[in-house]
């Protein structure tokens, strides 16, 4: 077996172990929160009921239905067994909806919001950073502090400020949701228009934050590369400025690409705050709702998706890097 496949298998085992721990924590942690989900449901269902025996009966039925009457470790084994068949259980709060069905409707919203926003923010941020480093002067002096400022505002503050200005005060964009709630999802111009209008504000907020961070990083990297010896040497051989700039920005981009891959991996987990502020119907909002209702299966389902996507992104990146960069490959072998 080659040293590289050995490395691959070892890495895979480590990531698998991490996944097992993550799955266990996903199961245990929600159940450690104070409170009983069934009590919450029963108190809603039994509004107006006075007969305590009936209430007790309703309570017991739900406990049995959700499997909460069994000891914790039995529940865990059932959870693991179901996991292998791709069943994440039934939601408590939206009973009898399956958790997998809820997640299937939520993931496209999250990805549809995050993916274009991260890509647009990343591209614009890198262009701005590179231009700021190259042009210097007034442009740099204006861009850099603004980027630093935007990047330092906590995201939820920025989101709330944007919501307040453009949603509440100017009324340019709707305040919440993924589309007008009286509409039925379908492929019509009206519906798509509504989706776009709801999409704009959360999209812009993510773009803005991403631009800030990327521009700062790219500016620093570009300045470092612009001052490197190969730039001077290339120019003193008469090589065109345009060609030298190409060298510089290609080299400055390398770490930025790593950053992009990582932020795509944490995309689903990173959407939490944005979705909660804008009440966007993605994973984040569902996770928030699930925690308030102590909806154990839904919490576990959401966190499972987040854990898997982060692990997958890191694993892929590590493997690809080992193949692409001979220096990193050599370093990886030394870990053996």
């Amino acid at each position: 077996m080659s040293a590289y496949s050995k490395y691959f298998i070892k890495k895979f085992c480590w990531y698998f172990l991490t996944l097992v721990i993550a799955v266990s924590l996903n199961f245990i942690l929600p159940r450690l929160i104070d409170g009983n989900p069934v009590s919450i449901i029963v108190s809603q269902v039994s509004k107006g009921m006075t007969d305590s025996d009936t209430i007790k009966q309703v309570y017991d039925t739900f406990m049995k239905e959700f499997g909460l009457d069994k000891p914790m470790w039995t529940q865990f084994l059932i959870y693991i067994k179901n996991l292998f068949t791709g069943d994440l259980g039934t939601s408590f709060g939206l009973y009898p909806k399956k958790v997998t069905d809820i997640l299937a409707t939520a993931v496209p919203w999250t990805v549809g919001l995050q993916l274009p926003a991260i890509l647009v923010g990343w591209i614009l941020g890198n262009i701005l950073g590179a231009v700021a480093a190259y042009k210097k002067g007034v442009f740099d002096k204006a861009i850099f502090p603004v980027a630093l400022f935007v990047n330092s505002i906590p995201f939820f503050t920025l989101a709330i400020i944007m919501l307040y200005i453009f949603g509440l005060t100017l009324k340019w964009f709707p305040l919440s949701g993924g589309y007008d709630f009286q509409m039925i999802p379908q492929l019509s111009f009206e519906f798509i228009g509504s989706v776009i209008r709801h999409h704009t504000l959360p999209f812009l907020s993510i773009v803005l934050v991403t631009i800030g961070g990327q521009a700062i990083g790219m500016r620093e990297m570009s300045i470092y590369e612009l001052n490197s010896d190969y730039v001077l040497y290339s120019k003193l051989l008469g090589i065109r400025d345009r060609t030298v700039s190409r060298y510089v920005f290609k080299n400055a981009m390398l770490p930025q690409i790593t950053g992009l891959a990582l932020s795509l991996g944490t995309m689903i987990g990173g959407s939490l705050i944005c979705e909660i502020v804008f009440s966007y119907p993605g994973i984040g909002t569902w996770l928030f709702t699930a925690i308030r209702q102590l909806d154990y299966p839904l919490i576990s389902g959401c966190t499972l998706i987040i854990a898997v996507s982060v692990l997958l992104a890191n694993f892929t990146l590590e493997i690809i890097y080992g193949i692409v960069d001979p220096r990193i490959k050599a370093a990886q072998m030394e870990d053996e």
Partner: protein
Amino acid sequence: MTKNILEVKGLKTYYRTRLKEQVFAVDGVDFVLEEGKTLGIAGESGCGKSTLALSLMGFYFPPLHYQSGSIVINGIDIMKLKKEELRSKILGREIAYIPQAAMNALNPTLKIIRFIEDMMKVHRPELSKKQVWEMAAERFETLNLSPNVLNSFPNELSGGMKQRTVIAISTILNPKVLIADEPTSALDVSSQKVVIKLLKDLLDKQFIKSLVFITHELPLLYHVTDDIMVMYAGEIVERGTSHEMIFDSIHPYTKKLMGSIIVPEEGMKGHKLSAIPGAPPNLKNVPAGCRFSDRCSYATDACMTGKVESKMVDDRTYRCLYDVEILKEWYAHE
């Protein structure tokens, strides 16, 4: 009569700092280099020798600024050229440069041949990629470098190999003058020898006409160059043939500098090493008189005031208030 390949007159190039201060790194340098000759430039760190090397290229990047003076290469006054003309007609073709840190002089993510292709796009646009390859491979082979190097990334080469590659690239268009800024300082002794041999090879094969070799290692210059020029605080203090400079220096600074050379010999450990007392002046505010006056053991009050011009005595230039005879007499009394 031999032709002058490089003539520098009254060259002044200053660094301008953010606080609007000026650093007089090269402050009125005159010298001439004849075709086929090699010239060494020596001096302590911070005396302006690397800045002089950069300035000779006629291509300035902030914070370095051209102040005044002329640089004539092969009959062309390059300071009168437009930047674009200088870039496409002079750099790499008439005058070429080997940087101080050849280790990092090559773009780490570009194969050597791609870099040469980019260079040829400017200077020899009529060549196809195949022709560029053939030309480069032939030159590399002539210089005892494997053409396989062309297909490598810089980080796959050793330090000495990188240095030789950089030299081969710089001289691929047969420039008249090659400016080598400390090409051996970062190398071990055996690699140094290979690099020196390569430079001599280039001269023998007429790939380059003249060489300016900058270093702080004086013994090395003695073996490599015909003439040596010593710089101090942005000025040339003395110039002569290598032999004269090492064994019969005129200027007190050169004398002291030669005395600081560490030569391996029997019983060295017990010897007291002589060093020049004090430190070179801050080039932001240089002394009014002789720039070496505050460290010179022969300095008189007259040295501290009034500018000292350089003098010429049978082909040798030196910058001291006192005549050769007086200086020689002082040295004899030591």
